[in-house]
């Protein structure tokens, strides 16, 4: 599986059919670099990443109502290098703004997989943690982390824009420290995620991975 160009073996439990070839997005190119340089580069990279969070404009639930004040003049998230992007291809932050119906979850998985790495998922509100007020609904999931890797939870129903800003502050710190690695986890545990997704989405008609 590992080509000579990518000496790093694929992580354990990785999806056997995950393409690891040239040009693949997975290719976090690992060259034989001095350790110190590698660390320094990683730090610089993470600093840039943390300060240019591009958020995908997908209002999946109620919580997105507080994204509008956040993007406009009063709370103005562009001050912090964050911007809304209309397409997954340009985004690296996916905000799951609350509950997800099964129908939405399908689209969310697809959108998430289309986002280029590194990417982070932020769960807003009770619903993403344990189902929130729709805990007994037949149509909403109770735990978001079963289906996509969640890097940060912001509690509230729904969290106010100020809480979101604080939350993004936490996310930025985690990114700078190199601790927000949900996207890696998703790849490493792909089998587990896919199993959960397919267990719930009975009419699975998606490709196994959306590039």
């Amino acid at each position, binding site marked *: 599986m590992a080509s000579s160009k990518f000496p790093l073996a694929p992580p354990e439990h990785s999806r056997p059919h995950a393409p690891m070839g040239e040009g693949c997005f997975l290719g976090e190119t690992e060259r034989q670099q001095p350790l110190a340089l590698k660390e320094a580069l990683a730090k610089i990279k993470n600093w840039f990443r943390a300060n240019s969070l591009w958020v995908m404009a997908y209002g999946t639930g109620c919580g997105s109502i507080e994204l509008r004040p956040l993007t406009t003049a009063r709370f103005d998230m562009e001050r912090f290098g964050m911007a809304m992007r209309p397409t997954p291809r340009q985004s690296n932050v996916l905000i799951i703004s609350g509950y997800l119906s099964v129908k939405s979850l399908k689209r969310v998985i697809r959108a998430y997989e289309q986002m280029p790495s590194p990417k982070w998922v932020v769960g807003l509100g009770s619903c993403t943690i344990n189902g929130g*007020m729709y*805990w007994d609904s037949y149509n909403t999931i109770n735990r978001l982390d079963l289906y996509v890797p969640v890097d940060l*939870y912001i*509690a509230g129903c729904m969290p106010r824009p100020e809480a979101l800003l604080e939350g993004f502050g936490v996310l930025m710190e985690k990114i700078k420290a190199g601790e927000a690695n949900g996207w890696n986890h998703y790849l490493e545990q792909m089998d587990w995620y896919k199993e959960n997704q397919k267990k719930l989405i009975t009419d699975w008609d998606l490709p196994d991975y959306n590039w």
Partner: protein
Amino acid sequence: MSLKYTIAPFSAWLQAVSKPFTVPVTGGPRPGAPRYRGWHINDVEKCIGCGTCSAICQNEAIDMVPVDDPVVGDSGLRPKIDYGRCCWCALCVDVCPSGSLGMSNEYVWADTDADVFRYIPGVDEKPWDDSELGWRREEGFELVDHDRVPMGMLDPDERTQTWAEVVIGYTEEQARVEASRCVDCGLCVAACPAHMHIPDYIGAIRDGDDARAVQIIYDNNAMPEMCGKVCTRRCESVCSIGVQGDPLAIRWLKRYATERFDNLAEVLQPQVERVGEGRTVAVIGGGPSGLTVAYYLAIRGFEVTVHEALPQVGGATFFGIPRYRFPMSSLEKQVDLLKSAGVKFVLNHRVDGDELTRMLAENDAVFMGVGLMKPMALRAPGEDLPGVIPALDMLREQNLGHEVDVGEKVVVVGGGNVAIDASRISRRLGAEVTIAYRRRVVDMPADDEEIEDAEAEGVEIVTQAIPLRVEATEDGKLDFVWGPAEMVQEEEGKRPRPKLIEGVENHLVVDRVIVAIGQGPDLDWLPTEISEKICNKWGYIEVDETGMTAVEGLYAGGDLVNDTADAISAIADGLRAVNGIVDKTRAQHV
């Protein structure tokens, strides 16, 4: 399209110099509004662990978790909030019967771990614990009903003219409304000495199933109609609704349900194993504890004989409680139930020491519940004068249907229920009544409602009055001399004691001085070899956790055993003995 429409939008540029809308980043997030609904806070000292917050939460976000040992009036449970469920609707705060739960105005909490968003407010330390602002319980908006359905009563003027029951009782509709106030917390169950299934029968009454309510009531109380009328109601004193409003009228609801049915044997269908088939039990004393033992053993096949010194069973509930509170018909209904269960009664028969010894030999078990029959003496000079009478004697004579003459003016010494009963009876006998009590009205052991009723009926209460002596006057009356007292707080937390103010004497000329200062055990008739084993220094009887005394096979209960001396505790003692006797019988079967 005119030029205007091309130019007008550019006016927006003028805003470049105006004050920006943007909230500054410095100084952290804006504080929430004064009544913002943020993270929960809980005053755990005030919280009673009733779980109403958890019950009203539509998201099942609140778990009750044990944090402390349960005590009467506090389950020891505290709410733990799951912020993966909470929707910040604050119904939990608005419903909180103790008013302990609140919300701070803090709202920021972000974490990478989904499992951290749970805590017990007030127990797990949080930065917002001391938050002054935030959503709180507010008077004027209650989600539970604080107001009890008022009980109909005879008019006070009318009452003194009749022996009819003062309390009229709830109508069906009133009972349903009152029952619907219950929040099903169960604190009352712990407070009730017999641990009656209070929320369950209230629920049955609320749902309109009175027969079920009666079955639940009789499940662990064989004299509930009596309790429904005269119980001391520890349950109501811990009722969670009672913290901020009127407690549920648990007694009146029990009264309502039990009064609904005349033939109890038909309604109650005990489903028990007749483990006592072929065994005999003697019960000495037909009071609440004895009758409880008799009923629950009889339905289990035991052959039970109740020995009673008076011509009627009921014990203190017969001779000690005036008929206007507990009519004879109610008592007879209970006795009928016992008879239908096969209990035998030997009336007008006082058991003596030899007979007790014989009974112990002849029966599988003997239960003794003879109560406190000896009135405490005043021990003031003049107590032997004719006209100074113990209240118990007066009550007994009255209840036995004998003529009682109290004259025109009476002073009753004491502040317990007996004193109140004696006063109210005297009122009905046409006398002017004064109660002389050593302490304050709040210290009176008598039921608050009873005190109010007595006052409504024209009984005058003189407090902090210490009896000094009784003297005979020349015209054949009695001069009751008393001195005023001051209340001294000797120890923190204990009730203050009265201390005589020397040198002042007040006189009250009356026809009768009725002494109701308390009563003690009268066990002189016990054989010494038994009394030595079972009595403690105060002359009361000691039993183990099965209700048995140090004498094998001799069980005891009631006022003789417990230190609260009320009917429901006696019933609880009876139940304990039932358990003990049944368990022992079962063990013998094996």
